[in-house]
């Protein structure tokens, strides 16, 4: 959609949301990771009582504070956009989204914002223990904030724990625990926070490497690299592990996204994982209009995709064409054609309900409510695919394959690269060759922008890969969008681009100044 020159209202609305979310995500992961690194450093200070550790903690806390302050409240704009640009969606899911976001606001945000003051104003004014507890609470609070946002996002990827009320045209939460322990939410939360820990670690390593290149703050930098490399290594291993479990979940709940991430058009058992590949447009189309893709070149690990999804090389992994035409009976996944029929049936029933409501036909309303909307089989077997009724063609259910494929592979390759960076950092540190290894110090510095690219790529896979859905199988973006003038959306897009670029420039400028100044106290 976004690649076409003729950008429509839907595309501009998506571009606006993507811009806001991606800028917001430049600030968030550093808060998640650096807060824990600072808490670890302060714990060592509290245990040893050595002033060098306090000085180190205060330096990294300053950089944390700058990032926290500039990033705070940037996520609120996303909530504004729901009400203005995505009003149909906002109404349709309001009750579900409300609970996690309210908990986020009340519990986590107040927890972190209260104790941030103690973190920065409390040195030498409160006891060491209380200060340390506050620092840990800020770290925990920041990550709890992320939990509730990610629970809400996971619901959009795999809607569970709700019932649709045709009277209000809204989904209502009936099982809070199903929403909280949604398998996508669990995977997403763990994968995201560990990736934030990794980003924080790479950031600390990069800044410390710069100090070492400048032959400044040698002890502080080496200790910072030691802590961040250990923390980063553990986090990166957890990122890889949770990525693997996410893949297994995805194959079940978002098989089309999973196939697009691997550019897998034809399914098979003993399916290989593409470790590296370059795509080109294929002459063969998918369906009527959509372009398929072939590989110009690729490095494939035989059987791994089948093993990742089902634990055995014999497991069949469906490709895009399989999902469009025949589905996957082994996982009870219908073909898109079948889901379009089921969705269309559900829409007809909802239309009947709407008409009955317009003429106040109470008897018909009761029949439809009892036989369909109150009937588990109808809800599970037909209404669950309601969104497919809004697709013009089956191939509309296929996301942009090159974007999903490249963003996924960039994320994975960089993920493994950072494991290597952490291992080499620890190796050089323990062999006392870190300061002499200028090549590695440069690698550590260059890793800072790379870790942001990896982090943003993860979200691009998650959000672009699930297109055309804003809520998987229930609501496509074309239905969710508010019918505003495209011009007004373009105006706000430009406003955001200016506002966020200014904020980012301010952050980078203040942070660079503080890094150049170095630790004080």
């Amino acid at each position, binding site marked *: 959609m976004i690649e076409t020159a003729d950008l429509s209202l839907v595309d501009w609305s998506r571009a606006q949301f993507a811009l806001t979310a991606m800028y917001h995500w430049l600030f968030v992961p550093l808060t998640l990771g650096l807060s824990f690194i600072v808490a670890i450093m302060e714990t060592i200070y509290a245990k040893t009582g050595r002033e060098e550790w306090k000085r180190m903690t205060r330096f990294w806390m*300053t950089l944390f*504070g*700058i990032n926290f*302050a*500039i990033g*705070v*409240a*940037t996520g*609120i*704009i996303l909530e*504004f*956009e729901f*009400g*203005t640009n995505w*009003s*149909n969606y*906002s*109404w*349709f899911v309001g009750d579900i989204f409300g609970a996690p976001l309210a908990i986020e606001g009340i519990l986590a945000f107040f927890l972190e914002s209260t104790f941030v*003051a103690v973190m*920065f*104003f*409390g040195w030498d*004014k409160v006891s060491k223990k209380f200060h340390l507890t506050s620092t840990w609470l800020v770290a925990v609070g920041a990550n709890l904030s992320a939990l509730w946002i990610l629970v809400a996002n996971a619901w959009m990827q795999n809607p569970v724990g709700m019932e649709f009320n*045709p*009277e*209000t*045209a*809204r989904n209502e939460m009936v099982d809070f625990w199903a929403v909280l322990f949604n398998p996508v939410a669990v995977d997403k939360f763990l994968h995201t926070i560990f990736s934030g820990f990794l980003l924080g670690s790479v950031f600390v390593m990069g800044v410390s490497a710069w100090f070492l290149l400048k032959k400044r703050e040698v002890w502080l930098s080496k200790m910072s690299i030691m802590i961040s490399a250990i923390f980063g290594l553990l986090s990166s291993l957890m990122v890889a592990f949770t990525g693997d479990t996410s893949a297994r979940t995805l194959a079940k709940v978002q098989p089309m996204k999973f196939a697009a991430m691997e550019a897998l058009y034809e399914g098979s058992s003993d399916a290989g994982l593409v470790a590296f590949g370059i795509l080109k447009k294929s002459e063969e189309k998918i369906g009527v209009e959509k372009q398929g893709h072939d590989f110009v070149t690729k490095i494939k690990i035989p059987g791994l995709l089948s093993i990742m999804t089902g634990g055995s090389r014999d497991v069949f992994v469906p490709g895009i064409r399989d999902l469009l035409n025949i589905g996957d009976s082994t996982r009870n996944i219908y073909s898109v054609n079948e889901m379009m029929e089921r969705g269309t049936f559900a*829409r007809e029933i*909802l*239309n009947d309900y*709407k008409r009955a409501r317009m003429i106040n036909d109470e008897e018909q309303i009761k029949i439809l409510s009892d036989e369909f909307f109150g009937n588990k089989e109808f809800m599970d077997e037909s209404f669950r695919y*309601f969104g497919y*009724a*809004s*697709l*013009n063609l089956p191939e509309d259910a296929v996301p942009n394959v090159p974007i999903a494929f490249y963003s996924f592979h960039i994320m994975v390759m960089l993920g493994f690269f950072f494991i290597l960076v952490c291992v080499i950092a620890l190796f050089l540190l323990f062999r006392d060759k870190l300061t002499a290894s200028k090549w590695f110090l440069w690698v550590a510095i260059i890793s800072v922008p790379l870790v942001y690219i990896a982090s943003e790529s993860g979200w691009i896979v998650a959000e672009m890969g699930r297109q055309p859905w804003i809520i998987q199988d229930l*609501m496509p973006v*074309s*239905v969710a969008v*508010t019918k*505003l003038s495209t011009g*007004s959306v373009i*105006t*706000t897009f430009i*406003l955001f681009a200016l*506002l966020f670029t200014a*904020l980012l420039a*301010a952050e980078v400028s*203040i942070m660079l*100044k*503080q890094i150049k100044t170095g630790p004080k106290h």
Partner: protein
Amino acid sequence: MKNSENDAPGLLTRIFRFYYEGFTNMSSWGRKVWIIIIIKLFLIFVVLKIFFFPDFLSRNYENDEQRSEYVLDQITKTPEADD
């Protein structure tokens, strides 16, 4: 009871002083980020929210019944009708 009443003002004063001293002794980077925070919050909650991001359904429909009717119409349109 009497003790807790006597303690309460002391605690509040201590909290006030904590914040007051924190803000007055703030470092230069702290002052800069606070200026940015204030400008940012003004832009987000006053300029953007009021002038650019009204709630579409609240502004255009009087009650929840009308809103649900509108959304019901939107979600039950055929793709052709949407075009």
